[in-house]
């Protein structure tokens, strides 16, 4: 267990250090996310009621779109110089790579969320009637689900031509449950509903997270075989 954790941490740190040096993904993701929220506020000038209705969807969609930009880079870096072959020729289990990369992508998405989320309060005069703590928990669980399935599918498409375009096409259908549940839970928190009213959505996100933690662990060996 200790050795597995050490290997996962090694992959995680390497990915994060590489990204912080290159500043390719995070800068693009933040810029894209900020652009969406600015353009949207300029285009529609929504009333406070409309904001409540549309903002949860806007927040999640902009996160998912900007997150996909980052996911596309996750394996592109490994293909350069055939680094993935270098990793796979070492005594590492493919699931160590998967978890390490997912953790690194999650941290990058959190950076985007930390920078862009306060801007929604500025641009849309947003007020939250529910618990900020539960909202953050929802953001965390939803982001984990998105990154888990996204990291897995990014590995699947990384060897293919036009993988940048292909990833969203196969990712979005699989994201429907977690995206829908995250938007519904976020809407309920914005509206100040009681926890019991949106608890089923949170449970759905949690189950989704668990499924997409376990399924890739079972399949990642096959994905990573070097041919």
């Amino acid at each position, binding site marked *: 267990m200790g*050795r597995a954790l*050490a*290997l996962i941490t*090694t992959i995680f740190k*390497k990915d994060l*250090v*590489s990204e912080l*040096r*290159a500043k390719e993904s995070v800068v693009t993701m933040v810029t894209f996310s900020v652009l969406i929220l600015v353009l949207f506020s300029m285009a529609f000038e929504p009333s406070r009621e409309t904001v409540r209705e549309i903002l949860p969807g806007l927040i999640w969609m902009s996160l998912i779109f900007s997150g996909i930009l980052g996911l596309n880079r996750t394996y592109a*870096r490994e293909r*350069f*110089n*055939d*680094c993935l*072959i*270098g*990793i*796979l*020729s*070492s*005594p*590492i*289990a493919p699931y160590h790579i998967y978890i390490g990369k997912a953790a690194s992508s999650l941290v990058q998405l959190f950076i985007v969320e930390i920078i862009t989320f306060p801007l929604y309060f500025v641009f849309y005069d947003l007020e939250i009637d529910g618990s900020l703590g539960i909202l953050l928990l929802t953001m965390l669980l939803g982001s984990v689900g998105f990154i888990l399935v996204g990291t897995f599918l990014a590995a699947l498409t990384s060897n293919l031509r036009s993988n940048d375009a292909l990833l969203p096409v196969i990712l979005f259908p699989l994201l429907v449950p977690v995206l829908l549940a995250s938007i519904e839970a976020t809407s309920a928190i914005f509206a100040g509903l009681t926890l019991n009213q949106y608890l089923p959505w949170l449970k759905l996100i949690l189950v989704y997270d668990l499924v997409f933690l376990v399924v890739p662990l079972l399949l990642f060996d096959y994905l990573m*075989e*070097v*041919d």
Partner: protein
Amino acid sequence: MIEGINLSKTYGNKNVLRDISLTIPKGEFTAVLGPNGAGKSTLLKILALMSKPDSGEVKIGKQSFVNLKGELKRKIGILSHSSFLYPELTAYENLQFYGRLYDVRHLEEQIISVIKKVGLLLALNEPVYTFSRGMLQRLSIARALIHSPEVIFLDEPFTGLDQQGISLLQDVLKDLKSSQKTILIVTHSFEQGMEDIDRILIINKGQIAADFPTENLQAGDLKRIYVEKVAS
């Protein structure tokens, strides 16, 4: 010792390897020659446990890779024409990364030892994207040796190297041979790195077309045998 038993591999409709069996004794330096598409690199990938054969088995020592893949990989070092290095990281960070994957003990000392061997001590903290092709290949050699492997696989390692890089790689190969490492090199070059080779395998159309020691080989013999076997 490396042993490949009845190895076969198919990609689509193409039989890349057809029932190949070979044994490479400990400490032997073997070259695998063959035309493009003969199955050389596929054989290397299978022997280096990077790819599974459709049928057959690989053993290193007496251990089969079926249940001990992770443990066996510790014994293997791979040097390819790709560097496997991350450009944003420094030479030190790249070696540290691979050292940690192999769980190398006394990693700091080992990094200094291999980096000195390839003459890159002064560039240890430089990011890899600033390295020339020759420096990259030297660092790749250090990466391949960071965990002191017993068996070293080299896939077209001379590709893109300048004369200085070729000399350095030849020195490293001599050094490895003298320390009784088992070496398998895949190449289509007859000139580079051939001086210390004990045995030559010629692969053609997924099968071993010739397998002979180099000790009594005269100048020109290799080219003649190669042309004969590949043409047939």
